[in-house]
């Protein structure tokens, strides 16, 4: 049974969100990584499709702290379809999330602090991604 199209459809039904969420890959070339003096730093933003739903954890953070996740009440939880992001991409440390408004202006940038897959029928269906805002 392939649940993925149903999950993607459900995420699209709940949306569209107020802000669009993008995955951001940061690539640095040249310079000296050891001292943080990079030659050039480029970012590539890709709109997540379907768009994730998200919320701030609030008091649920206490429960997640108990299982060892370093999150706080202001940490965001994104429910992302595995169609939009793969576990291979999530393993890349240069991956982050950004949110932009309808005009494409960046509003928030996030640092991913942890993720956990929701699995079924032998595959990752969605990921719960925990991320902290770094731009305010």
């Amino acid at each position, binding site marked *: 049974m392939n649940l993925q199209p149903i999950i993607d459809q459900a995420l699209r039904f709940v949306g569209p969100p107020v802000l669009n969420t993008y995955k951001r890959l*940061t690539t*640095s070339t*040249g*310079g*000296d990584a*050891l*001292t*943080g*003096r*990079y*030659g050039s*730093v480029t*970012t590539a933003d890709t709109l997540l499709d379907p768009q994730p739903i998200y919320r701030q954890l609030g008091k649920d953070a206490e429960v997640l702290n108990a299982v060892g996740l370093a999150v706080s009440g202001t940490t965001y939880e994104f429910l992302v379809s595995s169609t939009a992001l793969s576990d291979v991409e999530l393993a890349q*440390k*240069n991956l*982050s999330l950004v949110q932009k408004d309808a005009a494409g202006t960046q509003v928030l*940038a996030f*640092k*991913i602090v942890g993720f956990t897959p929701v699995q079924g029928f032998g595959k990752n269906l969605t990921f719960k991604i925990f991320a902290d805002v*770094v731009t305010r």
Partner: protein
Amino acid sequence: MIQAQDTFLHIIADNLPSLTVHPLRTDHAHPENESLQMNAVNIEFTIADLRVQVSQVYTSIDVINDDEQTARTQALQIAQLLQQGGVAPEMDYSGLAATPPTPAAPTGRNIFWNPNAVRFRPVNSGDSYFRFNCTLVLNFNNS
């Protein structure tokens, strides 16, 4: 201060090329630098005691490895390197990011530390890794 820190990172990385030196610093563009790395020598600069002439920055060296004997061997390598002398010329590495890059240049100042204060102790070591920490005071001149 940045030049002193850069110099210390390069002293470890350049003289012990078999080790993976992982600098720890807040850098949102490079989040990989914001967390400890397994099987690496993690170096973080913490408390800074800044003065008119000679300043100090506390330097935390964390050797983290999934094999305790490897971690202890690497710690010994670092200790032997730092105990060869307690002083090194401070270098300016800012030219490495230029186009075309220019080599590191001496600033005319020195960085120095107490070679007899290189003491590693186990910290929060769980079953899956061994963490060996040394906190060293790095001194540098401001002028």
